[in-house]
Each structure stands twice: as C-alpha cells, then as structure tokens.
C-alpha cells in the first residue's frame, strides 16, 4: 500500500468518524441510565461484604467458644486462641490471657474425661499446663509488683483448675482418672510455688 492510498484511507476514516455523533435523544437516555445508578454502588457492595463477613466471624467465633473439645468447632476455638495470643499485646495482658486459656483447657479436659479417650484428655491437660508455663515465663519479664499480681492470679487459677479435675475424677474413665489425679497434684504444687514466689516478690517490693 503506497502513501497516497494510506493518506486517502485515513482521511476517509476521519471523515466517517466526524459524521458519527449520538443523537441528542440517545445522549440524554444514556445520561439518565448512567446517573440513575445507585451512588457509591461499589462502596455499598464493599460495605455489605465486610458487614456480612464480620457477622459470620462473630457467629462462628461464638459457636467455636461454646464448642466442647469433641465438638466440630473446637479446632476453630484453638485457632482463635492461638491467634489472640500471637497478637502484639502488652505483656501483662498476654500473661493474663495465657492464664485464662490454660484454665479453660484444663476445665475442658475435666468436662470430657467421662467420655473421651485418654489421648484427648491428656492433650488438653498438657495444652493447659503449657499455657500456664507460658504465663509464668511472660510474668518473669514484668515489673516486680505486676509479676507478683500475675503469679497470685496464676496460683488462684491453678487451684480452680485442680478443683475442677478433682470433682471430675469419680465420673472419669479409669485411664482418665489417673491422668486427672496426676495433673491435679501437679497443679496444686504449681499453685503453691507460684504463691510463694508472689509473696517473695511482694516482700522484695516492700523492702525496696
């Protein structure tokens, strides 16, 4: 194709384009259609998606925390607990959260000790004890007076958990009874040690 043909063709295309304009009626109809659309359509949809997701999360979280260890949503409860404790919380809050989760696991072990296998109960007890150890470690990083308070709370929690285990022993399966007795003893020993440490911290703080 030579340049003249190309130039002529381009001129024809340009002329054809210039002759095409929307009729005023079409323009107005299109304008009405475009601007009749809901304002912020995408924003509204985004908001609806976020609201629905949040609502689902709340419902599932509530159901997960109500789930017993042998329930279908217990894995979600575990995941949420781990997520909570992985957040960059202040150490004092973190330690208290560890105490709370530790006690909940041990009480859950007591609750299912009459129907669940020894493996399940043992896992729950070990998990609870691990959270308590974590709380103790976290407390060690805190100021003496705060540490003393955390250790007092920890000891109180351990005694409550030990009570829950003791009360469940009569109804537990034979294998679970041994596990509960063993952990009850360990919890009471831990509580005693934590109380002693707490008192020492208190005295140390008083001497200062």
């Amino acid at each position: 194709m030579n340049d003249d043909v190309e130039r002529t063709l381009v001129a024809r295309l340009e002329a054809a384009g210039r002759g095409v304009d929307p009729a005023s009626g079409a323009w107005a109809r299109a304008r009405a259609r475009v601007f009749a659309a809901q304002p912020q359509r995408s924003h509204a949809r985004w908001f609806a998606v976020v609201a629905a997701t949040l609502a689902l999360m709340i419902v599932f979280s509530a159901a997960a925390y109500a789930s017993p260890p042998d329930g279908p949503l217990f894995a979600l409860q575990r995941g949420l607990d781990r997520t909570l404790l992985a957040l960059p919380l202040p150490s004092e809050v973190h330690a208290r959260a560890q105490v709370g989760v530790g006690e909940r696991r041990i009480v859950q072990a007591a609750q299912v000790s009459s129907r669940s296998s020894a493996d399940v109960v043992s896992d729950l007890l070990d998990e609870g004890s691990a959270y308590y150890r974590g709380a103790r470690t976290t407390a060690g990083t805190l100021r003496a007076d705060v540490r003393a308070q955390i250790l007092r709370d920890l000891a109180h929690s351990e005694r409550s958990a030990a009570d829950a285990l003791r009360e469940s022993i009569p109804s537990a399966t034979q294998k679970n009874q041994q596990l509960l007795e063993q952990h009850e003893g360990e919890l009471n020993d831990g509580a005693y040690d934590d109380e002693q440490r707490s008192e020492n911290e208190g005295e140390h703080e008083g001497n200062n």
Partner: protein
Amino acid sequence: VPADAVRLDAARRGDRTAFASIYEELYPKVYRFAYFHSHSAADAEDAAAEAFLRALEHIRGFRGTAEQFPGWIMRIARNVIIDRARSTRRTAQMVADPVGPDPATDADDRVVLRQALGRLREEQRSVLVLRFMVGLSAREVGAAMAKTEGAVEQLQHRGLASLARELGETREGTTR
C-alpha cells in the same frame, strides 16, 4: 487534557457533577467507538452507556493520570463490546452483515467503511476506529488496548493494509 486532574480527583471521591462533566466530554467518543463495532445506533448507545456505568462503578480504583483516563474508559468500552459480542454471539454475524447501519444517519462511505471494518480482526478494527474515527493518540490507544505505542503503530499499519484490501473487494461488489 480531556479530563483534568482536579475534576478526575473529584470524580474519584464520588462527586457526581465532576463525573457528569467527564461524561459529557467523552460520551461522543465512546459512542463513536461503539458505533463502529455495533449493528446499529441503538446497540452503540447501549454499549456506551454500559461503559460509563462500569466506569462510574470502578472510578475509585483508577490509579492513572487525567491524560490516561480516555484510554482507560476506552478499554472499558472495548471490554463491554467484546462481552456483548460474546454473549450474543454476534461477531461472525456482524462481519457478514451486509446492512447493519442505520440508513437514516449513515452516509454511503460510512456504510462501506463500517462493513469493511467489520471484516477486520477485532484488534485492527479497534486501533483504526480509536486512532482515526475517535481521534485518540497512539499512546491513548495503547492504554485502551493494553499495548505499547509500537504495537499500536504496527496494528495500525497492518489494519490499514487489510482495510485497503477489503475496500478493493468491496468496491468491486458495490456501485459506489
């Protein structure tokens, strides 16, 4: 600059008046682009309106400059046209359609050109329509088609050659 930066920023923030101002300026170009890809003026009107609806819906997500905005909206228009062609399976029919245009508004040469354009590959047709009938620069066409300026120029060159061939055949078969 077809849509200046201040007006575009306002439209992004949801200012309907600003978007309306952009619409008034660009609607004829979008319509013209749609017209040369459509069966009729009514089809072109629908496609152009749909393109602006999509633009209104997604304008918050547009991250380009005001200079890039015409290319962006033409890209939306092109997607609308391709979607409509797919959904109605009209592409093949459009190529073969001997009548197509609205006789009340189309001059003879426009009829001939429109038919010949309809027989080109979609990319070549889009480049020729955007460059010469809508009047965009090669850079703006590149933005509309997600191609480099060099690729647009190649498509333009091949498109003109193809169109010349098609018109040669058309002339033989018509009484122009």
